[in-house]
């Protein structure tokens, strides 16, 4: 193989020595790609060059040969840099595969069954900015028509956020599928997060408990983006605000809760800040923009509204998702 390369190189070099045309240089450059793909190092190329010169010209002044030997010495570290690059590329590929696997594991781990409740149509979408999702939705429901939803967001993205999220899941699992009051749920998860998660990690969470017997939603928030309530009767939007510290800040934190009565065609819109903090060329996306989008589709099923809002926001941001995006809509039917 080396012999073949030497012959080809000599041939191409010889052409060029006879006529210094662009055409011959082009042929030479194409050949160099082949050399790289066959892992021929720069020092070897110079050695091949030297051998070709010897064959073409025979006698040349000594200093010419010395200069090639010097050049070979100069190229050794370039050759090593090239090999290092190859091994780093391979390592990067391994990491990519590992991340894909981890993302699959996360998906399975964080799967949550959507409850079927009389009088409630639910739409949801959760899309990670990178491979791993730092947003999380968890449903709890019992047989008496109660269903709880937690919408959580780890401050941060990627792998650390995803690992952190599994703690929130275990905390929610410990509630044993009883959709308790928001104050209580947020208090429990706050203690789990405070105990088991790194001091620099914080989680915000909205928790809403829906009672299908009287169509009420009781909600609380741990420093989370306020949910939005759309009132069909008055065609107006209001924020569902509740006071409470981020999870993991203080074990003694306590949480407020409030209750609202839902009427037919009302919407409850729960989200993470990836929805509102998207940026367009003109700056942050205002909440009014989201109100407007929802207003356009409010008569459609919840899932269609969610998808529409996502598609439109993605379009406004030139398909660049900077943060994990999670949107859930409850529609009272």
């Amino acid at each position, binding site marked *: 193989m080396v012999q073949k390369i030497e012959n080809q190189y000599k041939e191409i070099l010889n052409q060029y020595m006879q006529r210094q045309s662009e055409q011959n240089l082009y042929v030479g450059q194409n050949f160099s790609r082949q050399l790289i793909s066959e892992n021929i190092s720069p020092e070897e190329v110079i050695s091949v060059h030297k051998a070709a010169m010897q064959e073409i010209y025979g006698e040349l002044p000594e200093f010419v040969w010395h200069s090639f030997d010097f050049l070979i*010495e100069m190229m050794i570290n370039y050759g090593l840099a090239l090999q290092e690059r190859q091994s780093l590329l391979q390592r990067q590929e391994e990491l990519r595969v590992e991340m894909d696997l981890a993302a699959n594991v996360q998906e399975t781990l964080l799967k949550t069954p959507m409850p079927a409740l009389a009088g409630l149509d639910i739409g949801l979408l959760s899309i990670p900015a990178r491979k791993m999702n730092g947003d999380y939705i968890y449903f709890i429901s019992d047989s008496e028509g109660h269903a709880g939803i937690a919408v959580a967001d780890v401050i941060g993205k990627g792998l650390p956020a995803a690992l952190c999220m599994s703690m929130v899941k275990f905390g929610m699992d410990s509630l044993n599928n009883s959709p308790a009051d928001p104050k209580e749920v947020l208090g429990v998860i706050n203690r789990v997060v405070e105990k088991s998660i790194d001091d620099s990690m914080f989680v915000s969470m909205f928790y809403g408990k829906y009672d299908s017997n009287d169509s009420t939603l009781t909600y609380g928030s741990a420093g989370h983006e306020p949910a939005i309530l759309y009132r069909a009767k008055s065609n107006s939007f209001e924020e569902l605000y509740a006071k409470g510290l981020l999870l993991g800040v203080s074990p003694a934190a306590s949480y407020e809760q409030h209750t609202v009565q839902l009427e037919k065609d009302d919407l409850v819109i729960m989200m993470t800040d990836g929805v509102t903090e998207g940026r367009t060329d003109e700056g942050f996306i205002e909440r009014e923009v989201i109100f407007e989008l929802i207003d356009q589709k409010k008569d459609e099923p919840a899932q269609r509204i969610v998808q529409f809002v996502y598609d439109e926001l993605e379009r406004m941001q030139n398909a660049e998702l900077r943060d994990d995006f999670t949107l859930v809509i409850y529609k009272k039917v």
Partner: protein
Amino acid sequence: MSNQSSVEILTEWDIVAARQLGRNVAKELGFGTVDQARITTAISELARNIYLYAGQGRIEIQQLTENGLKGILIIAADQGPGIPDIRKVMEDGFSTSGGLGAGLPGVKRLMDEFRIETIPGEGTDIRATKWLR
């Protein structure tokens, strides 16, 4: 069968002497210019590590003949502080010069065989071989 000679590494100039010894032996064995340059680069890196991190030590060059194959063996030995985290050191991109020098991973690439024994507090013994093809 082996033929040996060595250079004590005490000052930066001894690095040059070790290179020279390695090049002479490599040339004598019949290694081509490219392999000579690789072998001396490996010696350079090992000698420089001794000079920088152990203060003093020794580079030994041996000629090898095994099953009709000829080769060169570099031994770099010192009684310096040793290398505590050898796995990290062998990772690409770890060396303090940030990939500018060959470092120990580079020595491994330049040679055919590479073995390192190091005990924290006692010293380091590195052996690297290249076979003539």
